[in-house]
């Protein structure tokens, strides 16, 4: 509590520390929010299982390193591949059979998929919290002047930026990306162009889940407690981040992620009395956005030429 009492005369050093924390949290939100926004852009549905995919990725890493003693770098590659596959499998089993069903049915199926993953994890791995494997390279503290920063907090923004650049390249400069953008606007005509819609949708889930896996690994290093319900709160917040930025818009999801991450950390830093309301921040921002700009900050207003 002493830390909070001393906040009024916050030094430049501790401000810098909060900024680093905020940016790294924001990066994690951004990586996960992209999955929500991409799926929404293409299927017009909220993939409620996305947060639980993050949770599963953390368990994959736990099993790889702690149980099977695979070196962390191999494990992380394996985790990304396995999580991407898991995303594609969920789409195949829970969403594809409902391709022509009303949107509400797909949404309910998404909630079902989310519960299934949570309870499956609970059953298989027990509800007892496990600890994400410690990798000293990332968990060590680095002292810069008078501030001490965990190495992972520096790694997170760098990995996030690289992932984003790769993603934007795929979406904007490859044939698959072009097909994704086309499918997100017009299913039927995309079909007439000879695009296999199902493949494009699977690809979207694979990319979104791979980014979620990258986010999950870094999340696990930063916040090492793994439980079957670990994905629920980040999942909700990242969904909110996607809405704030303008759902369906990748850059919007990144912006929304940073707004929430930085906002959450800085509010607690400046107003320590509000620290109990930390999780409420995202929801308050959501309400404000829905009031004043329901399509989100970068969301487009639909216009149609007749």
């Amino acid at each position: 509590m002493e830390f909070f009492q001393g906040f009024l005369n916050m030094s430049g050093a501790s401000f810098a520390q909060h900024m680093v924390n905020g940016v790294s949290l924001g990066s994690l939100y951004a990586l996960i929010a992209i999955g929500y926004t991409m799926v929404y852009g293409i299927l017009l549905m909220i993939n409620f299982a996305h947060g639980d995919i993050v949770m599963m990725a953390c368990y994959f890493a736990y099993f790889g390193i702690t149980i099977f003693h695979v070196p962390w770098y191999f494990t992380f590659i394996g985790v990304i591949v396995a999580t991407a596959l898991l995303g594609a499998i969920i789409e195949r089993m829970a969403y594809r059979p409902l391709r022509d069903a009303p949107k509400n049915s797909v949404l309910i199926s998404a909630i079902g998929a989310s519960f299934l993953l949570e309870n499956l994890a609970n059953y298989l791995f027990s509800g007892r919290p496990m600890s994400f494997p410690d990798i000293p390279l990332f968990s060590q503290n680095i002292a810069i002047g008078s501030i001490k920063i965990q190495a992972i907090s520096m790694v997170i923004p760098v990995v996030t930026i690289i992932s984003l650049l790769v993603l934007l390249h795929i979406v904007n400069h490859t044939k698959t990306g072009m097909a994704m953008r086309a499918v997100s606007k017009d299913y039927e005509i995309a079909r007439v162009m000879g695009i296999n819609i199902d493949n494009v949708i699977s690809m979207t889930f694979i990319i979104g889940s791979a980014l979620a896996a990258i986010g999950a690994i870094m999340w696990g290093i930063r916040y090492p407690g793994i439980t079957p319900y670990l994905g629920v709160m980040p999942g909700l917040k990242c969904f909110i981040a996607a809405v704030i930025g303008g759902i369906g818009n990748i850059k919007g999801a990144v912006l929304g992620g940073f707004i929430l991450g930085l906002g959450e950390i800085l509010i607690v830093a400046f107003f320590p009395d509000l620290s109990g309301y930390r999780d409420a921040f995202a929801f308050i921002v959501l309400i404000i956005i829905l009031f004043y700009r329901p399509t989100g900050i970068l969301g487009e207003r639909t216009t149609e030429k007749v």
Partner: protein
Amino acid sequence: MLKVENLVVSYGGIEALKGISLDVPDGEIVTLIGANGAGKSTLLRSIIGLVKVASGEITYNGQKINGLNSQKIVKTGITLVPEGRRVFPNLSVLENLQIGAYMRNDKEDIKKDINWIYELFPRLQERSWQMAGTLSGGEQQMLAVGRALMCRPKLLMMDEPSLGLAPLIIKDIFRIIREINQQGMTILLIEQNANMALKIADKGYVLETGNLTMTGTGRELLENPEIAAAYLGKKKKH
């Protein structure tokens, strides 16, 4: 040759097409005229596989195509310029053309074809990098035609290409239709602008509430007094 036999299509119990038969011979321009709700678009949508066929058969060069998915139908060489243009608004003009060639892998030829489209529609070249959503209606129609041509179809189906366009642009579009037909492409054209459509058509069909009521060469139909009264806005002479 495209052959449609006894085609029935229904939406929730209502028959939009009540058993129609028609042929589109290779190299010809065939037009289908009819009022709103006659079932013209439904016919094209069922040929390209976007609408399920209740009964009847559609064959293209002897191969049955109803029941195939759109992807496979497009592979046989049929494509559609949809009603209302439906270019991808979030893709650039160039990307819209590239996505038209989505199923092709011959990079060099794709480039050549893009240049060919730009020759047909110089306006598109000027706007190559613009998002298609920012184009005018006429430019979007040119793009929709160009995009369809990019898959090198043998049969090009067009659904109301003149809808909502200025007369000068309509003229342009019809000139292009003729030009590509002369290069050997078969065209199935749906129009409310019956006058212009029949003028360029080798063969015409009249569709009324799900039934074909008349057929003939373009000229025959143009000179038919009943058609003149119903579709060309001319008074019947008594």
